[in-house]
């Protein structure tokens, strides 16, 4: 079967490679960088027996992620990142506004931001580092999306597994060892259903309002 040349041309233009990882915005100084990133992930989901009466497949087309991010470095010791996201926009025909501050942090690397061993001290809205899987960039998943079926986080109030806190992050031994860990805001009574956290602490996930501690170490052989 011969494929029409216009169709081939159209598909080629549709899937034309983007030119770079980020749009670099010129600044009046060479001491700082500013990069703009855009990410769109339209997603189509078909579920067997997913209609209200359960007799037919359900269809859903929505924007799994619609992100805009700004990030860069200042000198050789500071980095920053700010990202807005509108996750699941249009899912289940729900188009209400949901713009989230997904990431907002700055980091200080006293010995420099590049090299085989780097230590960052970061603060802001950060990933809670409890699993390497969630730290992977959303464009890099082997599967279409996060595999969250194995996670059991009560109410999961954390926006895309982030929380406000401070952490130490970096790598060592020529990047063979990676590490990150810190202290985060964690659960609050407002994250539970109304009335489930009593004034005497009964039923509260964090009756003492203790912060959340989390960390991990990764290794790269070879």
């Amino acid at each position, binding site marked *: 079967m011969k494929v029409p040349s216009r169709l081939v041309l159209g598909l080629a233009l549709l*899937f034309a490679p983007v030119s770079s990882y980020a749009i670099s915005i010129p600044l009046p100084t060479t001491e700082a960088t500013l990069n703009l990133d855009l990410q769109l992930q339209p997603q189509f989901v078909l*579920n*067997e*027996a997913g209609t209200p009466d*359960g007799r037919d497949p359900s269809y859903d087309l929505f924007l799994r992620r619609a992100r805009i991010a700004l990030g860069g470095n200042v000198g050789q010791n500071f980095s920053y990142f700010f990202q807005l996201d509108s996750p699941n926009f249009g899912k289940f025909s*729900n188009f209400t506004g949901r713009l989230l501050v997904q990431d907002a942090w700055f980091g200080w690397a006293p010995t420099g931001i590049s090299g085989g061993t780097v230590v960052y001290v970061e603060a802001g809205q950060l990933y809670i580092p409890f699993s390497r899987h969630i730290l992977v960039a959303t*464009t890099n998943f082997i*599967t*279409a*999306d996060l595999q969250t079926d194995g996670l059991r986080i009560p109410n999961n109030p954390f926006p895309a597994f982030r929380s406000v806190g401070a952490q130490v992050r970096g790598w060592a031994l020529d990047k063979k060892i990676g590490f990150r860990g810190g202290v985060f805001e964690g659960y609050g009574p407002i994250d539970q259903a109304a009335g489930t956290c009593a004034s005497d602490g009964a039923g509260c996930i964090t009756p003492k309002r203790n912060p959340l501690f989390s960390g991990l170490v990764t290794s790269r052989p070879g």
Partner: protein
Amino acid sequence: MNLFFNKNLNHVNIEFGINHGFSAYGPSSITAPAAGYVPASLDPLTPGGPRRPFANSLTNSNFKSLVVQWTMYL
């Protein structure tokens, strides 16, 4: 199946799943708070009885799902 047009910057995932209970995008993900309904995906317990709302149980029969996701990163 993952079709890469420009590495991970422009690619399409086509994923087929079979789920019994809890799942990120199967019938389990269609909940009243999110979708406004819970699908009556489960067959009646007795012939002629009412269909039952989906529950996150591995004893359910399997439910097939298809996900197609196009990632564009610039």
